[in-house]
């Protein structure tokens, strides 16, 4: 679907205080999840109780923002109740939409809560007009969060071929694998995004010192090595250094994060409805800074400012870490 209205800025809220920070910094929408396995950011210290969600929704609505609730893991066989309950709670709290990936959750929402908007999570990996059309027809999905494998030209073509809105990730962590279809974490460490809402689980991480420096390991597998004194990064599976053939290095992806801020104008031209910032694991200080910068950048894009102007607004966000525009530019493949 192509749209001519103002692009929506969708911002992460890992905690109630991050929700308030995002709303106050100018988020059009915030997204969050419950404190359990029903959402794909199931980390200690994060997420919402039903009561916190209800309060968060009241706060957001009072400030003119929407709340989208992610129930985007896959319901456990023989024990789908927690996912149904999460969907019921989100609807009863007045969430503006539920973001889901599992057909079981989508079907439950469509039949039990037909008045609550449904967004298709990136975890559903729907990237073609046929698959998006299926979810729209079967469950009345109104928006699809696009897998991070499409170039901006492909997004434009897709938007011409579908009738639902699209939401594109614009900033934050970057999965190099197609999300929702990656089992690397459970292979190495027994817990995965689809089953448990966790990738490269922290309880399986160790930093082991030896003669050569530090080995960052996940469940005993060396994901990266650092020389003595070199700061060690978190051993996220797909961002490690490995050996294949006669080469060693970042075989899957360099330790980069996504910053497609320079492409806001291109997203608008491609018919994207909403821009999403990743980072529910981030604190409120980070959320405030990033949301504020993107608020300015999106407003500037809406007012016809050029890409250079927008780049200068977002330049402050580079933390010295390396950034990429990912698959949005075809050369990434």
């Amino acid at each position, binding site marked *: 679907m192509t749209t001519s209205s103002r692009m929506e800025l969708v911002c992460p809220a890992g905690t109630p205080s991050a929700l308030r920070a995002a709303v106050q910094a100018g988020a059009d929408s915030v997204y969050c999840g419950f404190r359990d396995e029903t959402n794909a950011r199931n980390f200690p210290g994060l997420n919402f109780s039903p009561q916190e969600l209800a309060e968060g929704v009241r706060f957001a609505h009072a400030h003119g923002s929407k709340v989208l609730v992610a129930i985007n893991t896959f319901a456990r066989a023989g024990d789908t109740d927690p996912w149904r309950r999460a969907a019921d709670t989100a609807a009863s709290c007045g969430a503006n939409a539920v973001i889901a990936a599992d057909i079981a959750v989508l079907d439950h929402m469509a039949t039990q809560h037909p008045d609550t908007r449904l967004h298709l999570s990136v975890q559903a990996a729907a990237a073609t007009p046929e698959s998006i059309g299926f979810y729209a027809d079967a469950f009345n999905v109104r928006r699809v969060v696009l*897998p991070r*494998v499409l170039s901006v030209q492909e997004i434009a073509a897709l938007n011409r071929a579908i009738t639902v809105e699209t939401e594109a990730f614009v900033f934050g962590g970057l999965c190099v694998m197609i999300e929702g279809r990656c*089992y690397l974490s459970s292979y190495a460490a*027994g817990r995965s995004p689809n089953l448990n809402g966790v990738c490269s689980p922290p309880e399986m991480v160790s930093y082991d010192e030896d003669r050569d420096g530090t080995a960052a390991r996940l469940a005993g597998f060396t994901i990266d090595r650092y020389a003595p004194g070199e700061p060690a990064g978190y051993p996220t599976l797909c961002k490690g250094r490995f050996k*294949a053939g006669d080469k060693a290095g970042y*075989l899957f992806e360099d330790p980069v994060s996504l910053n497609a801020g320079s492409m806001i104008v291109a997203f608008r031209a491609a018919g994207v409805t909403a821009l999403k910032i990743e980072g529910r694991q981030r604190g409120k200080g980070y959320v405030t800074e990033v949301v504020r910068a993107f608020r300015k950048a999106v407003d500037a894009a809406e007012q016809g400012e050029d890409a250079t102007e927008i780049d200068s607004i977002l330049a402050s966000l580079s933390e010295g870490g390396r950034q990429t525009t990912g698959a949005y530019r075809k050369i990434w493949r």
Partner: protein
Amino acid sequence: MTQVALTLGPLFFHWPAERLRNFYFRIADEAPVDRVHVGEVVCGKRMPFSDPIWPEIIERLERGGKQVVLSTLAAPATVRERKAIAELCIDERLVEINDITALPARSGKPFVTGPFLNVYNEATARFLARHGAHTICPPVELSLGTVGTIASACPEIELELFAFGRLPLALSGRCYHARLHGLHKDSCQFTCEQDPDGLAVDTLDDQSFLAINGVQTLSAEVHAALFEPVTLIRQGIRRLRLSPHDCDMVEVARTYRSVLDETQDPESARFVLSCLELPGHLVDGYARGEAGSRPPVTT
């Protein structure tokens, strides 16, 4: 007693046409499997190489008494790939769906769902059965017990357990063979053809870990879920899926068949498998509800 059947799943790797012909002709003549999947599932760019050879292979397999299933792409992107899926979906043979893209074209006609489709629970399985799902091979990370839970809730569906081969763990928009060779996916030069079982990825400490196959990442180790037939039948498992590798797959199929026929126990079958030229060591953690990389528990 109900029999557990054997399926030869789709080949994940880029083999030249001649190798495909030889491999499947031997399967047709000698392998004790009743169902064989054909077709490219990983990369649409490989299809022009294998497409011309499939009709001949299908004919030979059917003549050998095998039921042929047409597998479809797991991550279609281009117009040509989507068209290829639509064309396969109108076939009268059974079709394997590996992405929801194929569902609207196949809805109402019988299909198999492969491990790339996220069927994690009985509600999803039932929904797909209403659209025509006949056999479901759930994602590899589900345990035997979990697949059994789905099976017992959905007796109308045939549940198939991924039982042999390097585990399909991830797909990407990026081609890792191309990246490793300093190329882009769009001009990849088909370097994946050099690795008939995928290319091993080791950790910096030389631990065997993963394998790359174009846009796909697999386990380096070979998953081998070997259970007594009574255990499988109790869980409602009606099929085991064997994933093709560049090893003696006829012997692999015979080994699984012998366990299902109770002429060999799982322990000795593991020993037989470990003597074949497999690309990795045996693991079976997923089937037991643990990390997929865990080796079998020896008694």
